[in-house]
């Protein structure tokens, strides 16, 4: 079981309370597809991913980015139960979507960088540590049902 300090809980809730999900989600996913182009393999049905401009303007990418952020919010509301919270999504990503779980870390890093750019100086080392810990546990939960 993951132990969260009061400070970490408050920090995570604070980060997500201030985020514009509908902007950050698309920004994080599109950045991931640009910075780690091999991740595009999972989005062949999304249309034009030919270059960075196409990716950033792609409405399917934007829509999916929003879904991802809203799903992360579920984790924020269930920090003591992330394994169960993400069990179904883990099965989905393994059995249906066949996503290599190493990719979860890639989008997690891109999300960290987007949050950093939005929060500016408020994104201190302590805030970064809390966010990265939270994302690491989410990533681990998403990888749990793979076999």
């Amino acid at each position: 079981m993951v132990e969260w300090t009061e400070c970490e809980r408050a920090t995570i809730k604070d980060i997500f309370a201030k985020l514009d999900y509908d902007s950050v989600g698309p920004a994080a996913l599109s950045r991931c597809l640009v910075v780690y182009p091999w991740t595009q393999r999972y989005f062949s049905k999304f249309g034009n991913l030919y270059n960075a401009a196409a990716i950033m303007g792609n409405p399917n990418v934007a829509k999916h980015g929003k879904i991802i952020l809203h799903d992360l919010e579920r984790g924020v509301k269930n920090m003591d139960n992330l394994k169960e919270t993400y069990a179904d999504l883990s099965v989905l990503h393994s059995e249906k979507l066949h996503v290599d779980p190493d990719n979860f870390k890639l989008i997690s890093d891109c999300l960290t960088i987007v949050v950093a750019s939005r929060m500016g100086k408020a994104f201190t080392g302590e805030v970064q540590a809390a966010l990265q810990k939270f994302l690491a546990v989410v990533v681990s939960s998403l990888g749990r049902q793979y076999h």
Partner: protein
Amino acid sequence: MSLNAKDKEAVRAFWAKVSGKAGEIGTDALSRMLVVYPQTKTYFSHWKDLSPGSEPVKKHGKSVMGGVAEAVAKIDDLNAGLLNLSELHAFTLRVDPANFKILSHCILVVLAIMFPQDFTPEVHVAMDKFLAALSRALSEKYR
């Protein structure tokens, strides 16, 4: 995943914009690394003060970014250009190369904080590739 002409151009152009703040970038990246990845403190047990923005952290942040600047200048042949630094890290400092990835990530986070408009996804991918190539060059002499 080597650097093509477009990557090198993007790195040079972005570096020209940010190099004025190199000291600040180095201090923040290093401070942040010591907080977010506490295991990295093991390399600095000889410092009196490991707190964010302390004198040893500022001084060392400046050194590290000096290395990055050198790498930008020698971007066409990083292995040759960073030979001395590689030998230093391999034989004297013996920093586990996994830590290069950690510090690179912290540098990218600081760039996103300090230059949110300029640190576009295209610049991000070029800088990520560059820091990875730099890390590989630093690891050259390890074994």
